């Protein structure tokens, strides 16, 4: 599908002068959500940076209706909201906009419950790979070796494969996206909005404050994560896995950019030794092996 930037809605849903840090990926992501869904979107936001971006009374930093809710209840609140809207005969789209901590750690049981019940809303996990709002603490989506304020010598664990965990609930739509590829993210949001049932989108969002890089590089780093293969763009639609461009051309490791290009720009990986780097590369290779195994089983590769 061709993507025409000039055909995108011109209305501002993200107000200039809000509380986001310079170069904030959540602001960019929210902007794409508003471009894709417009007036139809109702946000459900658990605690996180977005709670701050909304601003203080009397001004609001976003012009979408927002329900602020506690960490553990985002998916439950969205279930109720979506059911109430359907009873009233409204076709508004409920969108949960939760961080990685609010999804993979604290909100996981509510997310799993809503996925299992097949509630009708879109769950977007904005994955900036640590608890950025509270001061860069490690979450279960922090990659191996990354510095955070609670893992000074690098994260010993591995990133939780959350999209696969949600896909294992047999929900109609699970996708990964990146703020560096708006055409991909916007088309996935539009597709998710047209599907009835539980939809999950995992949005990769490099945070300049927590990842220790120049705020001007937010988009470049998001694109490098995909180009080096560290982040894979794919979608599970009714149980069928499909790689999306540009990840569909990166199955062959020789086509990918060297991982160092992505790692070297980030201060959180500054302490990495060659052995840690090998470990990270092995982990990425394992992720790709899992994906290609499914594609082979489907007969798509």
């Amino acid at each position, binding site marked *: 599908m061709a993507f025409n930037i000039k055909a995108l809605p011109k209305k501002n849903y993200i107000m200039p002068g809000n509380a986001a840090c310079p*170069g904030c990926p959540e602001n960019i992501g929210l902007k794409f959500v508003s471009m894709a869904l417009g007036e139809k979107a109702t946000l459900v936001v658990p605690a996180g940076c977005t709670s701050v971006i909304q601003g203080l009374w009397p001004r609001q930093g976003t012009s979408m209706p927002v329900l602020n809710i506690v960490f553990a209840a985002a998916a439950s609140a969205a279930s109720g909201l979506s059911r109430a809207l359907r009873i009233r005969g409204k076709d508004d789209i409920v969108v949960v906009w939760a961080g990685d901590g609010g999804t993979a750690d604290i909100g996981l049981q509510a997310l799993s419950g809503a996925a299992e019940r097949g509630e009708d809303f879109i769950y977007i996990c904005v994955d900036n790979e640590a608890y950025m709002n509270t001061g860069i603490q490690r979450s279960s989506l922090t990659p191996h070796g990354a510095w955070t304020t609670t893992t000074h010598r690098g994260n010993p664990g591995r990133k939780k494969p959350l999209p696969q965990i949600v896909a294992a609930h047999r929900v109609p739509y699970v996708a990964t996206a990146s703020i560096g590829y708006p055409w991909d993210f916007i088309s996935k949001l539009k597709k998710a909005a047209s599907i009835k049932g539980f939809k999950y989108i995992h949005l990769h969002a490099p945070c300049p404050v927590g990842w220790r890089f120049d705020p001007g590089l937010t988009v470049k780093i998001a694109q490098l994560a995909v180009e080096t293969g560290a982040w894979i763009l794919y979608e599970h639609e009714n149980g069928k896995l499909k790689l999306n461009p540009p990840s569909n051309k990166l199955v062959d490791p020789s086509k990918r950019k060297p991982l160092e290009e992505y790692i070297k720009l980030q201060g959180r990986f500054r302490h990495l030794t060659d052995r840690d780097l090998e470990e990270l590369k092995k982990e990425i290779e394992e992720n790709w092996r899992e994906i290609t195994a499914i594609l082979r089983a489907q007969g798509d590769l």
Partner: protein
Amino acid sequence: MRLSSRKPRKSLLPGDTALADSSPSRKDELVVEPGDHFYPLSIAAPGSMGRTGSWRIQRPVVDAEKCIGCYLCWLYCPDNTIIMREKAGPRGQDVASIDYEYCKGCGICANVCPVNAIEMVDESKFISQS
């Protein structure tokens, strides 16, 4: 409550005015009149954190000659501070302009520009001129 472009008689908070439109040219005031029902609801307005242009340490400067009007900076700007002026360029192309009142100076626009039409200039240079 209504929006007025005139001087407000009574503002929402003492000494406070909420801007109603995102365009820098229109600065309407939110007016509460006697007899209005008053709901403590937030209204989407620019500057919920004040004039964030003061956060900037580097200022993006657009070269209208180089700009090809591709809208990439407009697409990626996290704060919606890029305003595309239609057919305003020297070759009749759309040109990016920046709302310096709210631009936080992150530099994403300069990095995504395919023709390097946006340059990041230190704010100190603009202080010494004025």
